[in-house]
């Protein structure tokens, strides 16, 4: 399956990730250890089957995590658990040789629930799995890329991988930089939680991708729609949760190795992970992980794209201590990358510029090389995080997350300094440091009369500087944010209602260098905002196979410093913030009203799917658009952009579905449509994703017990993207180039697991753009100058290793 029904919680690995999960979690479940009320006599029963063969599994363990009730299946696969109270439970089913699965079960009456387990690639892994990791507000449309889905994206950047999620596109700059866009919203409106910490990089400019190693994640969850109450006022467009696997909680040492190679740009990636849990100190777990990734020149059909290589080196480590009533974890990660910038954007005069953007291919092309020349960006991002929790007796659970992250971004111009002494120093033209400290304190109260909920305090201190002697682009600023939120959930029968409130106070102090008439000066300003947010939603289980979700949210978002004060040239692009556009006053806060309705058809034998319709109205919507005629400096003309503010309405729908054609054949499809209107000017919004659809057929071969190849599959995938025709009026005078034509791409993927001795080697090969189609995407900033990547074959290998003595799951 290459996409998943949202809302399904992934198989619970667990342990220390509690701390992580918590951060990302809404309080719904959880540690509700209420003393049993009167009518706790409900029966949960069902069967446990092998997902592949549909045969009954005898002796499988079924555990209700919350109550610790456990049983084993009978010879016909049946299980019974009685004396359960009404409520939401996480039921974990495990069986030797199968991947354990944890599912959420909402009990109001006696229920019958079947489980189908997937054979585990690592048989006899011996991991005892408990606890859970929970994501996302229940009432929002969410999508999860599981470890299996992620396996098909290994080697790609985070933003690129997220495009697998329906309704998510990317704002792209060449082959190395992808910024996730959810339902047409991006950058300052999408919050990324990297292992529970809000990612705070220098996200100015679409050529600044999230500084995250996707190999860290064993699961990616996307909340499509506002989740501002829980995650802060800038989560208007949505949230991306990057979740590592929880730290190991069974004694022993395990490891994993991932290798990726790509034919198009010679990309090679290797990522390794080692983790362990001490037999003598079962509370102590640890993990170390590292990734290297390097790509050479990308090949568009017919030519190589100059200076399109990139390299990356990342590592992380975590140590956790966990007891049943308290726990703590320390996590550190470092991300380093260097990305080449296409020189085609560096042009001379107006005429050259017009020629450059009208060319079929860049004037200067090149041969293949791994060298990265000027211009390039060099980024380092470090995160240090501490999380901990304590159960506060019967009252609930208190947890905290404290993190500090430092983002250092150096951008080297194509041009070296003319002065040899300065050139010898090889200093970047732009050199920025952004340091952010975040802290959160969360108290989840125990379940009380169907209510579960949490109260939280969150604070951020952020400061942004550029190095002496480097060019100003974003001014010096210091930002304090303090917030208080409260979320409650109420569950009754088939209904679940959720409501939340949040209040943030933000204090932004800016020091900006000016050069009015050539005289240097510093302009200081201070802005204070109080931004409230509210949400209300409901989930209704219409039947065991149909769930309806309604979510609404009202959010106010203070404009970010880059939206207001960016000013200058980087990577041959000129950008100007709203406040600095002549004639504009200070940018006003945005007010957003979201509505989303999702219908999910799930757990059917053949047809499953999901439909989401949404509308987001944003008053004083801040967006970037080209400046025409473009700005001129002494080197010539620059592609130029400025922030503007208007009222916007975004509507759209995401539809996805899968149909089991025959026993081993799965047909799947998805489509996403966004319509963005500028309601102040009564015209379409600029830079909205074009309509897109995808269709795939997958064949999964039968697993023979004695076969050397297991879990083999083949998949054909077709992607179609239409031309964006809904653009502002007089578009030729509003952008440097009209939206590119629509395109269709063909992909093919095949994979299998080879058993090499006791080692299961997961191998796959994937071909993208097999017909070597020339195309450009409307949301890629390189589309003015160059085509997208041509044919690409990717080879992936994953090797899980287990060093401990094999012990079967109890």
């Amino acid at each position, binding site marked *: 399956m290459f996409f998943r029904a949202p809302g399904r919680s992934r198989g619970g690995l667990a342990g220390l990730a509690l701390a992580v999960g918590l951060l990302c979690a809404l309080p719904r479940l959880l540690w509700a250890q209420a003393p049993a009320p009167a009518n706790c006599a409900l029966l949960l029963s069902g069967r446990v089957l092998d997902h592949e063969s549909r045969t009954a599994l005898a002796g499988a363990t079924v555990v209700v995590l919350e109550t610790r009730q456990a049983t084993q299946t009978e010879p016909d696969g049946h299980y019974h658990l009685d004396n359960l109270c009404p409520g939401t439970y996480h039921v974990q089913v495990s069986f030797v040789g199968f991947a354990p699965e944890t599912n959420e079960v909402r009990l109001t009456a006696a229920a019958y629930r079947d489980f189908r387990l997937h054979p585990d690639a690592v048989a006899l892994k011996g991991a005892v799995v408990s606890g859970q990791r929970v994501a996302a507000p229940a009432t929002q449309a969410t999508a999860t890329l599981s470890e299996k889905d992620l396996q098909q994206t290994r080697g790609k950047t985070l933003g690129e991988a997220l495009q697998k999620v329906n309704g998510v596109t990317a704002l792209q700059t060449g082959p190395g930089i992808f910024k996730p866009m959810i339902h047409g919203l991006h950058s300052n409106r999408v919050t990324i939680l990297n292992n529970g910490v809000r990612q705070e990089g220098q996200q100015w400019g679409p050529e600044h991708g999230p500084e995250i190693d996707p190999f860290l994640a064993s699961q990616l969850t996307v909340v499509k729609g506002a989740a501002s109450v829980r995650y802060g006022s800038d989560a208007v467009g949505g949230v991306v949760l990057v979740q590592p696997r929880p730290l190991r909680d069974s004694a022993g040492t395990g490891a994993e190795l991932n290798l990726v190679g790509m034919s198009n740009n010679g990309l090679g990636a290797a990522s390794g992970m080692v983790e362990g849990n001490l037999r003598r100190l079962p509370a102590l777990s640890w993990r170390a992980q590292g990734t290297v990734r390097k790509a050479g020149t990308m090949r568009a059909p017919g030519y190589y794209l100059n200076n399109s290589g990139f390299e990356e080196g990342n590592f992380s480590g975590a140590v956790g201590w966990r007891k049943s009533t308290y726990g703590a974890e320390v996590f550190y990660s470092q991300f380093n990358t260097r990305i080449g910038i296409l020189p085609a954007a560096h042009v001379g005069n107006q005429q050259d510029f017009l020629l450059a953007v009208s060319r079929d291919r860049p004037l200067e092309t090149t041969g293949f090389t791994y060298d990265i020349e000027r211009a390039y960006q060099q980024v380092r991002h470090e995160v240090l995080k501490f999380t901990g929790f304590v159960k506060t007796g019967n009252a609930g659970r208190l947890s905290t997350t404290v993190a500090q992250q430092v983002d250092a971004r150096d951008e080297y111009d194509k041009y070296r300094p003319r002065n040899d002494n300065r050139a010898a120093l090889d200093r970047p033209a732009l050199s920025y440091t952004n340091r952010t400290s975040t802290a959160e304190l969360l108290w989840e109260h125990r379940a009380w009369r169907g209510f579960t909920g949490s109260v939280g305090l969150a604070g951020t201190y952020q400061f942004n500087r550029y190095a002496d002697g480097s060019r100003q682009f974003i001014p010096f600023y210091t930002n304090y944010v303090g917030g208080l939120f409260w979320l409650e959930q109420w569950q009754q029968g088939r209904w679940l209602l959720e409501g939340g409130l949040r209040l943030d106070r933000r204090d932004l102090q800016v020091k900006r260098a000016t050069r009015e008439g050539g005289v240097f000066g*510093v302009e200081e300003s201070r802005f204070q905002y109080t931004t409230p947010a509210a949400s209300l939603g409901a989930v209704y289980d219409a039947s065991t196979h149909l769930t309806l979700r309604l979510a609404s949210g009202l959010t106010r978002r203070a404009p970010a410093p880059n939206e207001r004060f960016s000013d200058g040239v980087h990577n041959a692009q000129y950008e100007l913030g709203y406040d600095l556009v002549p004639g504009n006053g200070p940018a006003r806060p945005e007010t957003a009203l979201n509505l989303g309705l999702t219908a999910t058809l799930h757990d059917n034998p053949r047809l499953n799917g999901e439909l989401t319709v949404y509308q987001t109205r944003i008053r004083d919507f801040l967006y970037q658009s080209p400046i025409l005629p473009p700005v001129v400096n002494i080197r010539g003309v620059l592609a130029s952009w400025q922030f503007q503010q208007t009222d916007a309405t975004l509507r759209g729908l995401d539809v996805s579905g899968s149909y089991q054609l025959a026993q081993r054949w799965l047909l799947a499809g998805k489509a996403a449509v966004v319509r963005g209107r500028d309601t102040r000017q009564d015209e379409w919004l600029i830079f909205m994703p074009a309509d897109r659809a995808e269709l795939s057929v997958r064949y999964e071969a039968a697993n023979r017990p004695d076969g050397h190849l297991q879990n083999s599959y083949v998949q054909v995938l077709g992607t179609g993207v239409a031309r964006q025709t809904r653009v502002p009026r007089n578009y030729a005078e509003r952008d440097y180039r009209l939206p590119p034509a629509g395109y269709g791409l063909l992909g093919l993927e095949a994979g299998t697991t080879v058993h090499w001795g006791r080692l299961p080697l997961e191998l796959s090969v994937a071909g993208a753009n097999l017909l070597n189609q020339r195309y450009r995407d409307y949301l890629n900033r390189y589309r003015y100058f160059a085509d997208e990547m041509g044919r690409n074959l990717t080879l992936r290998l994953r090797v899980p290793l287990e060093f401990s003595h094999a012990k079967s799951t109890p």
Partner: protein
Amino acid sequence: MKNLLFRSAFLAMLAAAPVFSSCSDDNDDTPTPDDDNEQITTLRYELTPTTGGATLTAQYRDVDGDGGAAPLISGLTLAPNTTYTGKLVLLDETKNPAEDISAEVKEEADEHLFLFEAAGTNVTVTRTDKDKNNLEVGLDTRLQTAAANATGTTGTLKITLRHQPGTKNGTATPGDTDVEVTFPTVVR
């Protein structure tokens, strides 16, 4: 629950944790002029008729740096069939006092080459200075005009500075463009 003491201590630590993320006060920092960051704000092409007379000047000037107020560009109105002695002046007026970039270019003349391209007007520019490798530079030039422009037409003179460290060979191809300015130019 016998380690209640430990738990309480732990709880207290958690509650206090946000306080630990103390933020050293960085508020005293202030942006400083970016002196290491080279800019050319001004390019002047000064033309003096060889027969004497007033000096004509074409100028590109953008003292507030990239963006902001647009650069001011003043062009040339030249006399027909006249020879001028040309001199290029480049300045960085963001520095105080203004930095003489042309002097720097002269010092590193073996890494620099100016190109002069006229279009739509009868103007020919010849470089008259040489670097230590006997390759032309272009800080000093001779400009020769021919017949006047047809009435109502204006041409352009494009001046380009190519930075060619270690690669200068007398042609425009190697290196990067440091300056590219186009002046409206007419012979009348």
